[in-house]
Structure formats: C-alpha cells, structure tokens
C-alpha cells in the first residue's frame, strides 16, 4: 500500500515488541507485595524446573506470572479481534463485543452462576466455560440469522447482532432477578478483571490467541481489500463471503477466549486498533501485528496499575483501561492533527 507509511512499519513493530517485553518484565517485578528482583528471577527459575515451594514461589509463579501473561494474551486477543471487526464492518466503532458476544457470554455466565450456586466444586471452571459456550452459540446464531437471505452482508450481520444481543441481555437481567446472591459476582464479571488468572487459563487462551493472531496476521491483505467494500473486494478477486466467515470465526474465537477468562474488559478492543492506526497507518499487514502488541502492552500496564495503585486493595481493570486509555487516545489524535 502506501510505501511512505510502510517504511515506518518495521521500526514501529520492533519498538512495540521491545516495549511489550519491558512492560511484561516490569509487571512481573512489581506488585502488591515487594519481591526483590533477584528473588523474582530465582522463583521463576525454580518454577521452570518444577521446584517451586516457598512463599515467593507461590506469589510469583502461582499468582503474578500467570496474571501478567494472561493480561498480555487477553489484551492481544481483544485488540486483534477489534481490528478484524472494524475492517469487516468498515465501522470505526465496531468492537469485539459487537455481534452480541458480550450478551451471549453474559447469559452463559449468569446461568452457570445460578446453576452452580449450590453445586460443590464445579463453579470455578463452569463460569468461564459457560461464558465461552454462550459467546460462540450467540455468534453462530447471529451469522446464521444474517445469512438467511443468502448473502452474508454487513448490515444484516449488525442488525441480527443487535437484535440477538438485546434479547439475551434482557434474559440475563431476568435471570439475575432470581439469582441475586450472585449479583455481585456477576457485576464484577461484567466489569472484567484478571484476578482469576491461573495456568490452566493460560493453557486455554494461549493457543487460541496464537492461532487466532497468526491467522489474523495472514489475513492482512484481505482485510485491506475489505475496506474498499464488498463489491470492490470481490472485483479484486476476493471470495468475500468465504473470507467473512473465516475472519468472523477467527475474531470470535479470540473474543470468546478473552471473555471466558477475563469477563468483559472494555476499551481495549475498541480503542487499541485506532491508537495503533494513528502511529503505523491503516495497512492491516502492519496494523494487525501492531495491534496485537499494543493490546498486550495496554492491558498489562492497566492491570499493573489496577493491582498496585491502591495495594493491597485492587480496582477493576476496566476502570484503568478507560481512564488511562481515553486521554492517551485524545493525545494521539491531537498530535496527529498537528502534524
């Protein structure tokens, strides 16, 4: 595409990658409890060799490390999903939750919370699993509804998404009336957070984000074509229908994985692609990997702030992403205008 911009792409990607590494290291080094750097490294070493045992080991290897990694994975997944949705719908306000993923996942989570309130043991894994199933079922329903008249066009998708989404949100509210003891859990789940991070979650979200991310990066050229509109993209040789289905599947998997383990974290999926676009330009071959890195950085930093600023009290990460991200986005915008 625009070669003038692409010359900035490689340095920008390298800078983002370095920033991510630095951020992750900082986030592992810092936390509610002060652990000396040498002890952090030693604890990770013991964790890698399977000899973890002491307090610092539990703290670093059992709690902090999975949380930081999960933040990076969820942030990356949401930002890439946001990128894909924004390109597919040619809508700058599209976010990973646009097709009703949030409502579907929400209903799944409430049902799991209600059903397992008295069932021993299963609740811990049931809520994320149900949220995941709810998100995927909703997406399948929306895509099926949107393609009832043959073609899978963008407007039908959006309308079907909105209709299904509101219906499910109402059902969720209805169930909540009867599950009020789980209200608090649900409210916090809706706010999103990484407090539940653990290695099994990483084992689920890691591969999904990796597969989804690689697929999304490989779709860069097609996403660029989609920006030209369905018809024009078709004329240029893209099987638009098929591409829509594949890219929706990829974006949905990414979103569902993130929602299942971290609830609904706002802002990242919507805003990170815009922020990154202001820096690296609109070429998806660069934008997708850059968003992936940017989303990871943003959520790792936000979560670091969320768990340390009032330590040992924690605040919901969604508050941080919005408070820190909003002004940052405005700054990028203003800076871009001045140029």
């Amino acid at each position, binding site marked *: 595409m625009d070669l003038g911009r692409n010359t900035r792409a490689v340095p920008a990607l390298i800078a983002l990658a370095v920033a991510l590494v630095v951020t992750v290291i900082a986030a592992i080094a810092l*936390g*509610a*409890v002060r652990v000396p750097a040498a002890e952090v490294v030693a604890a990770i070493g013991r964790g890698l060799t399977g000899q973890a*045992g*002491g*307090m610092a*080991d*539990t*703290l670093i290897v*059992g*709690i*902090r490390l*999975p949380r930081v990694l999960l933040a990076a994975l969820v942030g990356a997944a949401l930002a890439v999903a946001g990128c894909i949705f924004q390109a597919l719908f040619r809508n700058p*306000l599209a976010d990973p*939750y*646009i097709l009703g993923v*949030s*409502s579907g996942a929400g209903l799944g989570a409430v049902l799991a919370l209600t059903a397992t*309130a*008295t*069932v*021993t*043991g299963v*609740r*811990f894994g049931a*809520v994320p699993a149900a949220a995941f199933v709810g998100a995927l079922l909703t997406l399948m329903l929306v895509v099926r509804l949107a393609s009832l008249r043959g073609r899978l066009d963008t407007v039908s998708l959006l309308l079907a998404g909105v209709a299904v*989404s*509101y219906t499910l*949100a*109402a059902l*969720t*509210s*209805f169930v*909540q*009336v009867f599950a*009020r*003891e789980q*209200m*608090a*859990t649900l409210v*916090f*789940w*809706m706010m999103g*957070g990484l*407090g*539940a*991070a*653990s*290695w*099994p979650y990483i084992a689920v979200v890691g591969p999904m984000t990796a597969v989804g991310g690689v697929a999304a990066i490989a779709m860069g050229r097609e996403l660029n074509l989609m920006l030209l509109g369905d018809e024009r993209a078709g004329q240029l040789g893209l099987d638009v229908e098929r591409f829509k289905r594949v890219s929706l599947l990829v974006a949905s998997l990414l979103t569902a994985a993130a929602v299942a383990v971290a609830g*609904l974290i*706002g802002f990242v999926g*919507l805003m990170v692609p815009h922020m990154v676009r202001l820096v690296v330009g609109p070429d998806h071959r660069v934008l997708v990997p850059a968003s992936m890195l940017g989303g990871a950085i943003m959520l790792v930093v936000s979560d670091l702030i969320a*768990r340390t600023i009032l*330590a*040992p*009290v*924690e*605040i*919901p990460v969604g508050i941080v992403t919005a408070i820190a991200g909003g002004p940052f986005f405005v700054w990028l915008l203003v800076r871009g205008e001045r140029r």
Partner: protein
Amino acid sequence: MTRTTRTTRGALAALLFAAALAALALTGCTQPAAPEAAPEPAAPAAAFPVTITDDASRSVTIAARPEKIVSLAPANTETLFAIGAGDRVVGVTSYDDYPAEVADIAKVGDFSGPNLEAVAAADPDVVFVTTGVQADVIGKLEALGATVVAIDPTTLDGVYEAIGEVGQVTGNTAEADKLVADMKAKADEIATKVASAEKTTAFIEIGQNPLFTAGAATLLGDLIVRAGGANVVAEPGYVSYSAEQLVKANPAVYLATKTSATDAATVAKRPGYDGLAAVKDGRVVILEDNLVSRPGPRIVEGLEQIAVGLHPDAFGQ
C-alpha cells in the same frame, strides 16, 4: 460504550419487572383490614413519645406505640421477632427467611430496594431501614407518612445499641434489654473461652473473582477480633484484595462465607492457594452468611462460628 447502553437496558428491564411484581403484590395479596390491636399482656412501661438517634444520625421521634411495622432488612426483622414485636410486622423483604413466620408476611421489597407502592399498601407506622443503598429512600418513605428508623451497626456493641433502639421504638424495651443481656452473656462466654488462647491470624473472604474481604471498621472485622483473631486485612471497609498480599500475610485460618465459597475443598483448589498455611493445615472455615453478616440477634451465633473456627481447641473440637 455499547456496554453502557446494555447495562441501562438491563436496569430498565429489571425496573419493569419489579413494577410487574409490585402489581402482582398489590392485586395478588389484598391486605385484610388490620385487626384490632389486642392489648399486649404485661405491656412494658415504655413511655411514648420517645426520641432516638438512628444510625443515619437522624433524630427520630415516635409519637405512639407503632401498630404496623415494615422491616426492610432481614436483621431488623429478626430483631423485631426476637423482642416479641413480630406480630406487628406487616411487611418484609424477599430476602427475609428467619424466623419461619416471615414466610406469611407481605413482601414489600427486594434486591432493588423497597417497592414504595407495596410499602404504602402496608400502611406502616414505622419503617426500619438500613443505610447505604437504602439511604436514598428514607425521604420517599417519610413522604408516605411513616416514621423511618435507620439501623446499620458496624460493631457488635453497635448491634446491642441497635436492638435497644428497636426496643424503644416498638415499646418492647424490657424484651430488648433481656435479649441484649442474653447476647452479651453468650459473647462473654465466647470471650472467656478464647481469652487465654493466642491470637490467630485470619482472613475472611466474602466474594471471589475478584477476591473481596472485610477489613477494619466492619462488623465482620469486629467479630474476628472478638473471636480471638487478628484480621490480616488492616484496610477499612469491604475491599477487593490482592491475592499476592494474601499469600504474603499467610493467615493461619481462612474464613469464607458460604455464598462466596461453597466448601473448603473448592477454596483449596484455587490458583496460588496451595501455598497457604490455612489450606495446608486444613483450616479453611466456611461460615453461614446469615449468621455472620446480619446485625441482628443471631450475630452471636456467627461470632461463635468464627471463634470455633479460630480456636477449635477452646471449644473442645
């Protein structure tokens, strides 16, 4: 931003549903004409009008012995029944489940707060509320012509005082004094048992995902101290707490309310919990929410649950 819209929609749906419920409540259970108040045997020599200062720092004057009482918090309902004023309670919330008699009393509120129409239909002389979420409705309830008393103690002593106030407001002062004396005796008995034992460090979970706990200046925090424990959380109020800090503090006993953690085995399986001394030593104690969190007469039973959890030896367990 999409989420905000949806939340608003959700709230709207909840409101509509509450309205529907209210309609049902009004048509479904028509209030029978209030029976003539039978003169109570051995009516205590409570002199009306009485003036008290409630937990919202309001000075409230009760002109005459209230005949119809609405309670908007389960703890208040329990107190009313425990001091023999239960037969005058004409409205409770759908949270109320104790004593069993409350099942037959009209429900005039639920999680979203009191239903003003249902309260009006109950035509109460006095409404007992709690503060916090219910602070907003005090004015609205007063507009219905009811005298409103806010009860929200945050210490065990505060619970005793609150029960005394409920006694004054209802005119059942003697029964209230007796109840408080019984509760104090039980609390003293517990205090004596744990007095010689070393303070046990403890953490109390009241919510998970995120991990929520009760710190200083909370009723639960006060109960832990009185049960011979030292709360590892010094921050005041109910707060979302760092799992890292929990691991570092490493309390000897891990207390958790039942609605938050179904059982000890589930708690032990949480990520990072395997290193906790309380988990290793099998000292995860599940508490009955309604006993430890309702500032009413059964709070001393909650105190005992916590004390037994912290010092099983002192109770021969």
